[in-house]
């Protein structure tokens, strides 16, 4: 392996792969004699708007909304996972880089490995949602007279989620525990990420815990120990003062 020589053929075959590693706007540059400065090289992420689903089928969306609404149920602390847009958030993520595992090392061979060796799945998150939701709905149809997960009572949904969490729900192919972890991680993201990503509507997640969001300057409050921070949260593209308060 020492002194490994790159063959031209290898380079050509991997050129597309290499190009895909870089964002399309950036290009190799020789920079000398100045600090380069191009406006807008790092644009704001696009606002995810509710409406049509980008990745989910309507059935999948219904299942994810139901899951999110049990993981984060509506109560006096906040609206539920469905109403804050968790499914819209996850849908946009699965249609984008996250769903495709862009940037991760996805070369074979794949092996299960030891737990400490970390994630080793050849399946992308988008594929894992698709397979796992289908398996979950199959399971429910058998156990609940033809009903899918979204249509069974909340108490039963909770029971199923608990079994998934413990890894005791058998879904045939997909690992229920791994799917629980994926959905719960993404649900928390949809509750707490900047509203620009489609979840955390009305900054409900931030308001629940008192996180001021993208304020970015707390110099006046560092030494005001034990005093509640007085200002409401702001998002990257959303500010309470920009809205009418009717």
């Amino acid at each position, binding site marked *: 392996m020492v002194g*490994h020589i790159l063959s031209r053929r290898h380079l050509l075959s991997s050129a597309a792969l290499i190009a895909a590693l870089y964002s399309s706007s950036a290009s190799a540059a020789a920079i000398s004699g100045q600090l380069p400065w191009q406006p807008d090289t*790092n644009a704001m992420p696009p606002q995810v708007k509710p409406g049509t689903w980008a990745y989910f089928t309507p059935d999948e969306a219904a299942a994810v909304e139901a899951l999110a609404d049990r993981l984060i149920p509506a109560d006096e602390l906040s609206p539920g996972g469905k109403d804050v847009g968790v499914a819209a958030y996850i849908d946009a993520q699965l249609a984008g880089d996250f769903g495709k595992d862009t940037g991760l090392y996805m070369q074979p061979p794949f092996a299960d490995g030891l737990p400490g060796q970390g994630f080793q799945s050849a399946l992308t998150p988008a594929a894992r949602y698709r397979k796992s939701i289908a398996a979950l709905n199959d399971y429910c149809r058998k156990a609940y007279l033809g009903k899918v997960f979204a249509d069974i009572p909340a108490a039963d949904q909770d029971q199923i989620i608990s079994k998934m969490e413990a890894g005791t729900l058998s879904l045939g192919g997909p690992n229920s525990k791994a799917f629980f972890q994926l959905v719960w991680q993404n649900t928390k993201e949809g509750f707490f990420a900047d509203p620009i990503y489609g979840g955390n509507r009305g900054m409900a997640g931030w308001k629940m815990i008192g996180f001021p969001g993208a304020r970015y300057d707390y110099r006046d409050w560092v030494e005001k120990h034990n005093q509640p921070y007085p200002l409401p949260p702001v998002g990257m593209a959303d500010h309470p003062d920009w809205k009418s308060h009717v």
Partner: protein
Amino acid sequence: MATKLPHKDVVIIGLGWTGSILAYELTGAGLDVVAIERGPWRDTATDFPPATAPDELRYGVHLDLFQRPAQSTVTLRNKTSQTALPVRQFISFLPGNGVGGAGVHWNGMTYRFSESDYQVKSHVTQRYGKSAIPDDMTLQDYPMTYAELEPHFDKFEKLLGIGGKAGNLRGTIQKGGDPFEGPRTNEYPNPPDKQPLGPTLFAKAAETLGYHPFPVPSANMSQSYTNPLGVTLGQCSFCGFCERFGCGNYAKSSPQTCVLPALMPRKNFEARTLCNVTRINLDSTGKKATGVTYVDQHGAEFTQPADLVLVCSFSFNAVHMLLVSGIGKPYDPTTGKGVVGRNYAYQCTSGVLVKLDNTLLNPFISSGVGGMALNDFNGDNFDHSGLGFIGGAVLQATQTGGRPITQINSFGDDPKWGAGWKKSVKENYQTIYALGTQGSVYPYKDSYLDLDPTYKDPYGVPLLRMTFDWHPNELKMSAFVTEKLADVGKAMGASRLAASSRKAPYSVTAYQTTHNTGGAVTGDNPHTSVVNKFGQSWDVHNVFVYGAALFPQNSGMNPTGTVGALTYFSVDAIKSQYLKNPGPLVPV
């Protein structure tokens, strides 16, 4: 065939912390320098302005600024008997990518190791006898003393504008600083910053126990500061989006805020971005480098001839570069022979969660460093007789953010989801404080880096293979210091407390630190080191290595202070000796 480019005096692989400092120093000496960086150009105004910087999902969760595993990763196994598998997603450590390197998105805790850490083998042997060092531990001294490095620490701290309080000024112990530190010539260039509630409570409690808390030396500016290069940094706003994020306020020391504005106008410097160096080329004797080969983003291959090759591509990436280029003898754990990849080490962290009833911690009010620490149980600052381990850890109370996706603490038996989770998260957010330790990791015969036999990067180059696990010495150390930290937690008035010391096996599934060390160790013996005291390859005199790969073992603190000091130590020798008479700076 690769396109051959016009000759340069110096080629630098990677434009992060060490690469930018070297480029500044060597262009200042009149040399024609090119830095080849695999990631994109990055700057404050265009890449992380306040409008888009505070985005936890993008930077904190999806790790937008970091090296993509698809570009290159490592494989991991705990033992030689296992099959290493690729780290497909970085979690345990997060290497940087792009101009500025990990300096863009670090926290900025900028320590000097304890004086005795630089001669740890001699020191331990002298104080406790040879038997204190386990048989399989390959501990060794740095080839220079703290005193030799001191002026270089001073220079690095001034470049960065570190804020702190000296504990030992030219031998006189100073109140409020770290009394265990080695003698400093000067105070820190900036005063320590204000402290939020958590660290304040920690420091009070530590004092009642007789310990010596001090403000963590910080690269988040406590006030605006103009460094010796004439570059001005702004004041830190405690924005709460520091580590993993670029700073929108020009307030965190980074190559962008400390070096590049002074470096880039120089006509004798060129930065080439989105170009991945695949190897260092050697002449037919194998004793002299002729330059490097790199591939641009379109897959086109180039060779860049140069007289001097500086490897600045971050800790284990530097070891990888030496291995694929055939520079130095690869380490073989079965014979103990060979040096490249030997003495890989890491940071042994642990934590204590304390519940502080009726407090408002306001965790979102935080900088990357802001906090208090104590070194009473670090290095050999305490008597190890009868403890069954050597080494130690800094105990820290920092508060680096209240970012809700990744930074809400909870106890193991708190509800994990549903209505119960909501209630406990709301309560925990303001009342659970996380204390931490950063412990030393000493080197072992079976902890090393080599090339993976199976997995390759997109350029067809074998990935680096990491064989690493925790050893009894580190686990005992962690149990000991974690208990000491829990004592401080109790003295803070915790109503609940959960202490978790480090447990084997080493796992890549939780973030620990990006303090990977060793593999291209500095020393004064070519049989136990890859480079001499100036970072110069014993085998190929015009190749110099930088970064934490040089550490013979890791100490119980963050590495970059020592990385910076070693860089200045080396470049001084290059300027004053090597350029006049290129050749080995230390006779072999």
